[in-house]
């Protein structure tokens, strides 16, 4: 049941998640609408429907702050740009330290964030009690609060972006898997979908965990791998936890949704990359333990759901943005671990680069060839396991 596709498109975007759809939207805003967006799965079936929906602009390294702070600024105006509510809520985002070492890291992060103009606050004990009354305060050695951070439920932005992109006349096809990528004279010339061939001036891979396979179809490698993680939601409760949270020492993130569910997950040190969407028996108990220790009120609250999805970590956990060094006319917005947070910002910078040819420095820091150049963007406050990122 694959639709008849055009023979030629200026831009083919592979992946109709938040990266692909917002890139299509930003290109359309800059006057480019000859775009085809293809996705092998169903709407919200990939990481854009399986993530923790957390948004923050403040990290510890200047490179991460540069990209993600820009993205938060984009999040702030996304509802008005799309003329639909993406439900971005600036409830704040707290980064929690439970050890002296992490506290020291947060001090550095705080300085870097201030220097970049991020609205950031090192929470005093009194402020912590106000911002997070329910948390187990005795465990905490330090906390940064990012006032402009918060959450953005993925279904809202996915619905808004899909509707707007289609309104602009851009074709988006789900359940339409790219089966081959054609290269001619050192450039990507077309994508193949079964027996259909779509010639493209530019092909952009925005396919989450599938991006590694798609790169290989074009005969190139990228330094990121699909990596399964799991999340869970509790049954609904009235407000208990207001801001979004990163528990750095526990590699755990969580927030309470507008539906009342406490949603979050933990990464486990040393776990290896797996390639299926099955849930396991060992992540949920460990996440539950972290949750219980930090929010003992939840002891008798039941789990409503657990699921898994893919990160696509590069060795430094940061995204891969821009052209591939080994082949022309193939760009990436892949390698995402904080894809919801970074999506609007990356899409804006990518579109600008594609249309004007100028690559913004905030995007250039995350270039696809940065590892080769010996310039990774390491980040200490991200809730990702560097061992898994290097997998």
């Amino acid at each position: 049941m694959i639709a008849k596709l055009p023979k030629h498109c200026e831009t083919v975007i592979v992946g109709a998640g938040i990266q692909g759809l917002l890139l299509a939207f930003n290109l359309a805003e800059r006057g480019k609408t000859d775009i085809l967006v293809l996705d092998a799965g169903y709407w919200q079936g990939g990481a854009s429907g399986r993530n923790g929906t957390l948004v923050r602009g403040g990290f510890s390294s200047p490179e991460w702050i540069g990209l993600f702070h820009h993205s938060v600024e984009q999040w702030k105006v996304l509802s008005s740009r799309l003329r639909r509510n993406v439900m971005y809520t600036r409830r704040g985002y707290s980064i929690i330290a439970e050890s002296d070492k992490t506290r020291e890291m947060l001090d550095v992060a705080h300085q870097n964030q201030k220097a970049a103009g991020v609205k950031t606050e090192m929470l005093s004990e009194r402020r912590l009690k106000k911002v997070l009354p329910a948390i187990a305060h005795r465990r905490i050695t330090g906390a940064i609060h990012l006032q402009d951070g918060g959450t953005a439920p993925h279904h809202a932005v996915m619905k808004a972006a899909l509707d707007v992109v289609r309104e602009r006349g851009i074709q988006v096809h789900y359940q339409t898997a790219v089966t081959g990528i054609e290269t001619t004279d050192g450039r990507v010339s077309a994508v193949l979908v079964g027996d259909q061939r779509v010639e493209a001036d530019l092909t952009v891979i925005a396919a989450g965990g599938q991006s590694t396979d798609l790169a290989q179809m074009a005969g190139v490698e990228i330094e990121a791998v699909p990596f399964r993680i799991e999340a869970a939601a509790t049954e609904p409760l009235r407000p208990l936890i207001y801001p979004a949270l990163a528990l750095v020492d526990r590699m755990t993130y969580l927030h309470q949704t507008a539906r009342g569910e406490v949603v979050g997950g933990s990464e486990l040190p040393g776990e290896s990359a797996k390639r299926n969407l099955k849930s396991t028996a060992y992540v949920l108990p460990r996440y539950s333990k972290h949750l219980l220790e930090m929010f003992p009120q939840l002891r008798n609250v039941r789990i409503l759901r657990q699921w898994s999805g893919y990160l696509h970590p590069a060795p430094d956990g940061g995204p891969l943005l821009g052209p591939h060094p080994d082949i022309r006319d193939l760009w990436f917005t892949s390698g995402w671990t904080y894809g919801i947070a970074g999506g609007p910002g990356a899409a804006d910078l990518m579109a600008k680069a594609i249309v004007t040819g100028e690559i913004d420095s905030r995007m250039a820091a995350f270039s696809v060839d940065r590892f080769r150049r010996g310039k990774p963007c390491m980040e200490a406050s991200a809730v990702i396991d560097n061992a898994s990122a290097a997998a």
Partner: protein
Amino acid sequence: MTFSGHRLPHISREPVTILWNGRPVRGLKGDTLAATLYGQGVRVFARSRKFHEPRGLSGTFVAGHLATVDGIPHCRLDRVMTEPGQRVEMENVWPSVRFDLLNMARLLPRRMTRAGFEHPRFIPDSSFAWMPWEKLLWNIAGEANPPEFDDRPEIPGRQIECDTLVIGGGPEGLAAAKAASGTVVVVTRSPELGGMAFGKAASVALPEGVTVLTDHEVYGLFNNGRIAMAAANDPQQPGVMIEAKRVVLATGVRSVPPLVSGAALPGVLDARTALRLAAMDGVAPGNKVLVMGTYKGRAVADTLSKLGCNVLDFIDVSDVERINGRGSVSSVRVAGRNLPCDAVVHAGPWRSDPTLAFQAGADGDLRLMPGALPTHVSLQGACSEPGEAISFGRALDRDALVCPCMDVTVDEVLDLIDRGITHVEELKRRTTCGMGTCQGVPCWDYLAAVVADATGRGVEDIGHPTYRPPRAALTIGQAAGLADITEIEV
């Protein structure tokens, strides 16, 4: 018609008094809270998420019997035993049960509350107006106040290794347990073995060495079925991690109510719940009971009669057009005629719960798809047979609820199908169908039936969204207790 509650004379136990929304209610020690309340004529246990419609004990839709017990939200009233002085409170009311402003939700046009309060037309577009609205929404959608700070640690989990794990304590499960060699564990959600015979079957005697976990329900199957997580119904009891060489699923079948309006009204019970109330708790499902079902359902009507219930009639479920009632069921519309009653028991179509078989066999990268069962997992008895077709009267009723937990109507699904959206995973995400405590059982069977009917495709081609864990929920305290006894696959 009001229902005063009716206790059958064959059960007598020590009386106790509990508080229901601050009002004393008398019950018997050893009853579940659901039986205590039902026996005293309380039908409405809960209010639905969006439409704020009355819900009660049903045996089908878990959301109907969730309430706050002694400050702990979302307790399953059909699992919690009655204890003197318990404070049981209805959820999803504000500020109080007697003066409940959330009742105004019933006045809203249903189209406005589609997909929860999260996608409708009237949410503010600007992010500044959105934040106070979100807070209001959160207070409504959250349904219940969070529990108090409780500094007790997790409940250390229980670890069991066995040769054969049998899931299901009915006659089929017991037969499998008897036939199995080596160490055997039987898990049943009931307080006793024997299935719908409720402990009376003489065949209950099991060989020595068989470990029986009553009052436990399986949370999910993992690692291709080699690991089962189970939850004690009592949240203060441990979660259990069972590693088995062989797993037998003998989960039987259960009756699925027809997809007609009123099917989620209080007073509509599935056969198992009605029989359990009458046989074990001595509580009549109603004073005037209609039984509807497929041909096997007649036996249920006979049994209820023998237990002393006033059964008016047995109706073929495919003739049922709708179920009427405001706070509770008052009549059933059959072939253009309203048949008065104060309880409806459905006994068919009978279908199995596909969750565990799905979890044992499913695999996939873009989407978990059902797969063949691994060789060490088998189905025994009725759950291995194809289920009876969902019944929805002569034509689809647009007001019927596909998902009573999240208040998703047939109308909402049909409108999406008209827009070309027919993928069940996408329909689930756009409507939230099946994302409540029932875990899509039977809502996703309804969903598939609606898509099949609207598109003219065969129901077997439509498929289901992923049957994720939990099937029955662990608490955070129970799950945390399993952390030290599960190994990370590296």
